């Protein structure tokens, strides 16, 4: 029985990673056919990070990331249809076609957005954790960023605040070795990215971002701990991006050999092989799963194409909200005064 449950969970890891891969391959193709505008940053190669970490936490936990956000959104349960429609700029998109590839939001799944200005989402992450603590909820926050994001001011302010107020945020640096064309050794003076946590006396560790199980276990571990004993963690997650930074990047800053070497670590290939070896999956089943997922991806393009453009008459509808006239304030009660969740 335990075995059966495990099997489903393990297969879901694979399914989710494969979904991201196939979805993005489709998106890439659509971009090349010029059906998509703006920027498109693919997550291909890094799927184990989003999938493993989301599997390692609870649905009520908030997640937030930068602009390379398709993987996190899909891992969190967003459907391919709304994801694809978003990059088509259609009103059926996850952000109604107003956000685009860099701004996937999914409130029902506690996916708090893709965010396009480097580092500026990290203070928001501390705010979610703050709110959870404020309300006495045992939610934690997963805040993802690239290796290029750790050098900007708001990164620092967020980590410092999280440490000071002991906020339950897992800061996950997806170290894919490059910030655009800049190798990670050329953007900071650190021997290892994990060292950055020491500047905040923050618990820090490295995880293998190509191993979905390792990621899941690490995050499960940390989130269990900080759910009851809130404090932030700094996690360097070593991974690799197989595509260019965005669709316009030919990737001249790395050799073909380097890329091929990293492709040997492919989180999907390796994990499916493991599952097969463990007898949890057959070759046949894998092919069937892949076909199913590819069909969904193809379907999402049709859905996006068939979806309506946002109505031009709605142009002014998303700049301000009408204040909710039915809002119910929560009067102050005496016991709150004595609470001190932020240790100030």
């Amino acid at each position, binding site marked *: 029985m335990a075995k059966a449950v495990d099997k489903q969970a393990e297969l879901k890891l694979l399914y989710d990673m494969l979904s991201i891969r196939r979805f993005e391959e489709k998106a890439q193709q659509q971009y090349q056919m010029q059906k998509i505008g703006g920027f498109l940053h693919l997550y291909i190669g890094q799927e184990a990070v989003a999938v493993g970490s989301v599997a390692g936490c609870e649905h009520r936990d*908030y997640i937030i990331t930068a602009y390379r956000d398709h993987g996190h959104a899909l891992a969190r349960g967003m459907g391919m249809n709304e994801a694809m429609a978003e990059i088509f700029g259609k009103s059926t*998109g*996850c*952000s*109604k*076609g*107003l*956000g685009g590839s860099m*701004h996937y*939001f*999914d*409130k029902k799944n506690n996916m*708090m*957005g893709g*965010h396009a*200005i480097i580092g*500026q989402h*990290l*203070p*928001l*992450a*501390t*705010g*979610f954790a*703050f*709110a959870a603590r*404020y309300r006495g909820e045992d939610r934690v926050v997963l805040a993802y960023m690239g290796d290029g994001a750790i050098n900007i*001011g*708001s990164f*620092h*302010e*967020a980590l*410092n*605040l999280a440490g*000071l107020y002991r906020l339950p945020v897992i800061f996950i640096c997806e170290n894919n070795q490059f910030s655009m064309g800049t190798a990670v050794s050329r953007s900071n003076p650190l021997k290892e990215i994990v060292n950055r946590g020491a500047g905040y006396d923050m618990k820090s560790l490295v995880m293998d971002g190509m191993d979905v199980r390792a990621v899941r276990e690490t995050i499960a571990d940390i989130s269990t701990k900080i759910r009851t004993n809130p404090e932030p963690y700094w996690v360097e997650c070593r991974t690799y991006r197989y595509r260019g930074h965005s669709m316009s990047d030919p990737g001249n800053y790395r050799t073909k050999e380097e890329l091929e070497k990293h492709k040997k670590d492919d989180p999907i290939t390796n994990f499916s092989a493991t599952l097969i070896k463990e007898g949890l999956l057959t070759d046949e089943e894998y092919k069937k799963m892949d076909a199913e997922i590819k069909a969904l991806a193809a379907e999402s393009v049709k859905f996006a194409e068939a979806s309506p453009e946002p109505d031009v008459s709605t142009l002014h*509808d*998303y*700049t*301000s*909200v*009408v*204040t*909710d006239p039915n*809002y119910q*304030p*929560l*009067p*102050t*009660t005496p016991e*709150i*005064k*004595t*609470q*001190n*969740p*932020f240790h*100030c």
Partner: protein
Amino acid sequence: MQMREITYRQALNEALAEELDRDQNVFLMGEEVAQYNGAYKISQGLLDRFGPKRVIDTPIAEAGFAGLGLGASMVGLRPIVEFMTFSFSLVAFDQLVNNAPNMLTMSGGQFHCPIVFRGPNGPAHQLGATHMHATECLFANFPGLRVVIPSTPRDAKGLLKASVRDDNPVIFQEVEMLYSSKGLVEPPMPDFDLVIPLGKANVSREGTDLTVLSYGRTMPMALRAAEEVAKAHGLHVEVIDLRSIKPLDLETILNSVAKTHRVVVAEQGRPFCGIGSELTFQIQEHAFDELDAPIARVSMDEVCMPYSEVLEHAALPSEEKIVAAIKATCGL
């Protein structure tokens, strides 16, 4: 109802206390707001009354705690974030102008940010080039932000309470030079819940010869200038306190212009792309034929702010400069 005379500072303090009391989702955060009771004592007594969960000291990390507030607002809290002055909000600028207003659009309407950023704004006295920025026009440039600037204790209280209850991000800018000024205000809660809707200008003085449009720090100067030209020249000057820059109460402005046909803008800030220039555009757009003379503005000089008292005085708007502008606009 018995009106009381209280200071602008006290009015703000009451507004904070009443909103904190009314709604647990409201909290106050900023540098020195708790144990120190506020650099300008606006939050005096609030830590004692509401405790360390609701009134929270921060490190010097404006972008960090502005963003923390925004994140908390996305999930339903209603933060009030104090900047020791809005000059320091410039280091948090991206959070304020990118994250705050855009969240609603970027998320396709899923998330909005009911948050107030508040603190003193604009020139004070001899604080030099870096500490006296009038930032209202910078924020007003960004769709999705409300920009509110009270000039009286009553407005300070009523507009702040309205700002806290607004579901949009509000830039609430106070006037340091007015913190100790006094005015009549309704009794505090539970006797009276003073909420002044955003976006309604106030005709602070009626007149028929010329309209002075002003707000915040220059309002008292404008009123004194109006008195002076009344005495000296028999001019009937109408003075309008905008109270909120955004939303802008164009209707009240245009009604006045239709009556007076002459306008002077008195603003605390820098002229270029400032509030005066926007008011001028909108007035001439809607009331071109009503204008009998060019609109004049009294602003900071086009200089970096010097420390020296004499130079500072020369650079800042003043009652005398407003009087001169009124006279010139009336052809005197």
